[in-house]
């Protein structure tokens, strides 16, 4: 296949809006393709396929969201066609809708943000049913009893061996940490108040948990860094916890050419004030810190007004949400490992808190100078569903659009954030970074997010001419063009044409197989044998995710050896 | 239990447990049967004393005997009301039907029109 004459943005390879051809053969980008399909992309924007590094798209809490929200199912219902299964849902779409809708946006890779190990089988069952996109899942470790004990005992080698084992057991891609320590405290209804608040019964702190997990992550040379959801997320004044967390790990070096820590959905962790009355944005402070510390990356967690479903392993947060909003509430604690909650809600333009939150996401992205440190996300579906990504891109590229929006919001958005004064408008190069190149690099996916020779043949072509359309003024056109790709190409196959799905290949599932010294592995195994005998409610031999659940694996090797 | 055509299932599902008071009040002696009736139907089941039951409450295990007196309506929620229906109970000499008898003549001819 040859994509001819498109205006290509491929930041990883230094291509910034050049008119050029892209050739794909056998699913990979090549120098030149001899023959095959020709796609006329003249006058159109050509980007590598989108990479969503953080979304809640598969697993127990997603399905809990679906089951408890039949009212959501009724939105976004699309009948089956000869090619497509039916679609339902807006904030909690069914598996088929997830794949089709990502593809229509030109996204070709999507990662599930958090899977517990014990229920990873479920995560993979759902991932297997999501069509088209390549995928992976990040494995939760921050409240796991074995982790807490290794941290308490200062046993880095055993911890690294456990991470390797846990990734294999869950067929996970990376180390996810959510409200470390707090999830375990929630086992008896508690939480931790900050990174130095000891976890009951384990006598470790979040600071220690995060540090040890980062050091073990780097010892294993995992492709991705630790991926952190901070303590005190969602609370007024929590920016102090966020900064304290970052300062606590400044000294840790990355073992690979990437960040040493990725902080996710930072919008929810960038709050000032002492309560809801004096709630305000501290995005400038956070962005400033990132501007001075290049070893950290973050993703936005942008709010989208309207219906959302919050779902997170931060179970105490969800309980708090439910009480505050008098909303229906589901909670699920997982023995020895984690906890989670799901609460539906609606973000309102005239709600002063929501308006400020909306501003914060944009502030963070625009005030962080280096786009390589930033990923555009909505923490789907916590901030809003991913189908709204074009809206976020348009906001990042157009100050005028931001002003139009601000005018419709509660005025505290303007008063309690610095957004009105921000002039910066992202350009296509920035957008290509924050939606493709950056997330690929941050996750450590070498063949994604770029169009150099050897890259996966994942390309998005949008019917918008970057040389003719001024995104700053014509933001409506930007949003419309990105909402339905002219072409989406996955592994060299056209999957979307004119915004419609035309093929449904099955993607591959990334997971990391890390090797560790035998003695460390044996010590972990001994611990696990005891835990299964005494505490788990299932047998150890039935625990690990079997091959049957990952039918098209893409295994990345890592490890100490 | 999945061996539905077995004698064990018959024993397990075709009885009615009554409180001591109700059992005695009905004058059942030894091993007797009762006829249980609701507005939806009636069924003969064997009677058992169960001290765990309060007077006025009978228990028939889930199964085709119990369901002979359960109504089809779901009250708009999809689930019939299997428990708590008001019943009349009287002693009877009629025998308890075997499982096949319960369904004999139920299948209408020509069910499969293909």
């Amino acid at each position, binding site marked *: 296949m040859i994509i001819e004459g498109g205006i290509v943005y491929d930041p990883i390879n230094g291509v910034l809006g050049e008119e050029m051809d892209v050739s794909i053969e056998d699913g990979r980008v090549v120098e030149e393709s001899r023959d095959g399909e020709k796609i006329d992309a003249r006058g159109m924007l050509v980007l590598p396929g989108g990479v969503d590094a953080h979304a809640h798209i598969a697993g127990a809490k997603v399905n809990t969201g679906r089951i408890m929200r039949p009212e959501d199912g009724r939105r976004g219902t699309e009948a089956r066609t000869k090619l497509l299964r039916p679609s339902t849902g807006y904030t909690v779409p*069914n598996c088929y809708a997830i794949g089709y809708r990502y593809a229509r946006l030109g996204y070709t890779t999507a990662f599930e943000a958090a899977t517990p190990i014990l229920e990873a089988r479920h995560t993979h069952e759902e991932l297997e049913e999501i069509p088209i996109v390549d995928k992976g899942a990040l494995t939760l470790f921050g409240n796991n009893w074995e982790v807490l004990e290794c941290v308490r005992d200062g046993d880095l080698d055993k911890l690294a061996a456990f991470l390797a084992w846990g990734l294999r057991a869950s067929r996970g891609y990376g180390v996810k940490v959510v409200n470390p320590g707090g999830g375990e405290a929630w086992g008896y209804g508690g939480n931790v108040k900050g990174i130095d608040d000891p976890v009951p019964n384990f006598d470790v702190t979040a600071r220690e948990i995060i540090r040890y997990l980062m050091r073990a992550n780097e010892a294993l040379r995992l492709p991705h860094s630790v991926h952190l959801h901070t303590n005190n997320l969602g609370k007024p004044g929590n920016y102090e916890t966020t900064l304290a967390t970052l300062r606590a790990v400044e000294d840790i070096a990355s073992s690979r050419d990437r960040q040493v820590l990725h902080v996710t959905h930072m919008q929810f962790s960038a709050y000032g004030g002492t309560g809801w009355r004096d709630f305000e944005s501290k995005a400038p402070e956070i962005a400033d810190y990132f501007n001075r510390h290049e070893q950290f990356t973050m993703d936005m967690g942008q709010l989208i007004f309207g219906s959302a479903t919050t779902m997170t392993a931060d179970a105490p947060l969800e309980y708090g949400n439910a009480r505050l909003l008098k909303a229906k509430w589901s909670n699920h604690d997982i023995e020895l490992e984690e906890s989670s909650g799901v609460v539906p809600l609606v973000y309102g333009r005239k709600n002063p808190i929501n308006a400020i939150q909306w501003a914060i996401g944009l502030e963070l992205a625009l005030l962080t100078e280096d786009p390589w440190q930033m990923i555009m996300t909505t923490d789907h579906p916590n901030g809003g569903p991913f189908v709204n990504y074009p809206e976020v891109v348009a906001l990042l590229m157009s100050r005028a659009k931001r002003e139009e929006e601000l005018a419709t919001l509660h005025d505290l958005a303007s008063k309690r954030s610095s957004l009105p004064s921000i002039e910066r408008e992202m350009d296509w190069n920035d957008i290509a970074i924050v939606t493709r190149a950056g997330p690929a690099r941050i996750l450590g996916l070498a063949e994604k997010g770029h169009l150099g020779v050897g890259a996966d043949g994942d390309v998005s072509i949008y019917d918008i001419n970057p040389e003719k359309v001024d995104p700053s003024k014509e933001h409506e056109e930007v949003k419309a063009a990105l909402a339905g790709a002219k072409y989406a190409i996955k592994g060299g196959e056209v999957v979307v044409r004119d915004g419609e799905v035309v093929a449904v290949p099955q993607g591959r599932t990334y997971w990391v197989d890390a090797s560790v010294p035998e003695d460390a592995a044996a010590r972990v195994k001994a611990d696990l044998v005891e835990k299964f005998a005494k505490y788990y409610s299932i047998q150890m031999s039935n625990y690990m995710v079997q091959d049957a659940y990952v039918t098209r694996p893409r295994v990345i090797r890592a490890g100490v050896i | 239990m999945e061996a539905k055509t077995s004698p064990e299932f018959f024993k397990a599902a075709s009885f009615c447990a009554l409180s001591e008071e109700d059992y005695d009040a009905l004058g059942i002696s030894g091993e007797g049967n009762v006829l249980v009736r609701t507005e939806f139907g009636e069924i003969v089941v064997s009677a058992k004393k169960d001290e765990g039951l309060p007077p006025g409450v009978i228990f028939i295990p889930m199964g085709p005997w119990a369901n002979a007196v359960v109504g089809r309506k779901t009250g708009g929620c999809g689930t019939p009301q299997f428990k708590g229906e008001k019943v009349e109970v009287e002693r009877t000499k009629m025998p308890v039907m075997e499982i096949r008898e319960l369904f004999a003549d139920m299948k209408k001819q020509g069910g499969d029109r293909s």
Partner: protein
Amino acid sequence: MIIEDVLCPFCGCLCDDIKVEVEEGRIVGVKRACRLGSSKIRGHERIRAPMVRRDGELFETTYDEAYDRAARILKGAKRPLLYGWCSTVCETAKKGILLAEVVGGVIDSTATVCHGPSIIGIEEKGLSGSTLGQVKNRADLIIFWGANPVEAHPRHTMRYSSNSTGMFTPEGRRGRKVIVVDVRKTRTAKNADKFILIRPGTDYEVISALRMIVKGKGDLIPETVAGVDKADLEETAGMMKAAKFGSILFGLGMTHSRGRYKNVDNALSLVADLNGFTKFVVMAMRGHYNVAGFGQVCAWETGYPMAVDLSRGAPYFNPGETAACDLLGRRETDAMMVVAADPASNFPRETVEAMAEIPVIQVDPFPNPTTFLADVVIPTAVCGIEAEGTAYRMDGLSLRMKKVIDSGLPTDEEVVENILDRVRRLADDN
């Protein structure tokens, strides 16, 4: 040869520590399973061969003919109902949903005569829950409400609840309080620290009274509520608030009684209220070993966990209108396929009479009253013994069931796939 860590394919406990002894391709011993599971694993009467009904009688036939007949029935029906799915693995459910899409039918599981009301309650209020291991490791108060695990989930109390030991519960039963709420004193109640007898159909009022006491409005409650003494209710509420980790495990007593999903709604609300004071979880004691699994698969595939009407090509969910008993009750369905369930035994007789008027396809290893009404009968391998696959435990945990012996029979999944295949070919022929 002893095969270890086999999963039991009977109830929602999904015990995964069963030892099965196999000799020369036959099961000769089962250890650790309760009598219900053991009986199923050892095996009993099977359907010997596919059958089709002619002139009122069932005659043995080939799988080929059976698939053909089944496909014709489904293809020719205006509003087919595909029902059951509780005693088979998730892989079967996936094919079943696709088949329902292709024939434009309604797909529903046994949940709608079991814990369907619990699902609806969850849709109203959400559910604050946990895996069973949390109950084992932390719970110091266990409340069985309208559930009788000693009879229906025999190993539950030992493995997961009242009698289990864990990290923070080393004393097991001695370190816990067990309360049973029921309309009769069951065997489970006999082992409880406290038994509350309620009148049938009064769960809702009793729960409301407890909620009021929990939230400090106990002085508004009369001296008895539905025959229960206020003192008893106050003591119970006190035990709930004093617990470090309380749990309510509820069964069909709540879902089958007057009020149905409103009882569950109220119970879920009570637990949410209690979380304002202490840690509390709630769990539905699912009956069949994979009714939960069907709900999970159906939800991620269609957006809804049961009673899904696919006749217009887009999923439509409205229990009360689209559940199996609704469709049959209104005589709105003109063909029914039953996979791994026995509605003839478990539906109200009036509803079964409606079933008897329409063509019925049965896919099952075992003969049961549904067989008496079936027009096509297709025997299959027993999942978890003769076929592998995925099942979900009552707390939502998924595990992989093993195959320990061969049966030579097709699996439920293969049968549904074959019928789907024939249906598609019939469609192409038109």
